[in-house]
């Protein structure tokens, strides 16, 4: 299953206010928006793959697996000033 949502959380640590930025990213909408462009790019991808000697179907399958494997990835960076968290569901 491809990731359907992600969360980006930014929290300034130096600021005295309780400002916190918590952005849920509906990746499902991103995929839907990107779909027409991907369909348009598909012939170019096939031609480029065949020209470089790569099986385009295999390449697509691997890219799909890569996309699916992104789920549950979590990256957090904390410094004295800011704390950033990216979590892909």
């Amino acid at each position, binding site marked *: 299953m491809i990731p359907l949502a992600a969360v980006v959380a930014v929290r300034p640590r130096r600021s005295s206010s309780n400002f916190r930025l918590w952005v849920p990213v509906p990746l499902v909408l991103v995929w839907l928006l990107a779909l027409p462009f991907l369909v348009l790019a598909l012939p170019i991808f096939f031609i480029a793959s065949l020209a*470089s*000697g*790569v099986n385009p179907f*295999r*390449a697509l399958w*691997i*890219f799909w*697996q*890569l996309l*699916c*494997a*992104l*789920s*549950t*990835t*979590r*990256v*957090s*960076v*904390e*410094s*004295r*000033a800011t704390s950033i968290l990216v979590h892909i569901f």
Partner: protein
Amino acid sequence: MSDNRKQVLDMLAAGQITVEEADRLIAAIDDGPTPAAATGLAERPATAPRYLRVIVNAVDDDEGPIKVNVRAPLQLLRAGVRLASLIPPQAQDEVNTALRQHGVGFDLSQIKPENLDELIDHLGDLTVDVDGERNNMKVRVFCE
């Protein structure tokens, strides 16, 4: 007498090893792993690792203490290695040459899907700790 001990004594009798070497080998046999540990059953966790964790702690002059915590699913690593198999052979040669020039004797063509599961299974036993003097950087890489 165990076969290993007998083999060491045979090597000593044949003059293939010195007395000190035989002593060390016998001591190593005596302190050797138990049969369960030798098969890898003793310390291996019941479940296979699912994530590759990278934790970096550093102290920057301007930013102060910095912590980076990355949790990447091993499935992503698996897919990434498969992605490497898409690299055309001529590009692989160039990458291998560049790696060798930088002192990394690694051949991309040796990564094969059939070896992938074995590689990832063994990553469960991997822990890399790096302590750098610059910025008091500490890097820890492990699987969980």
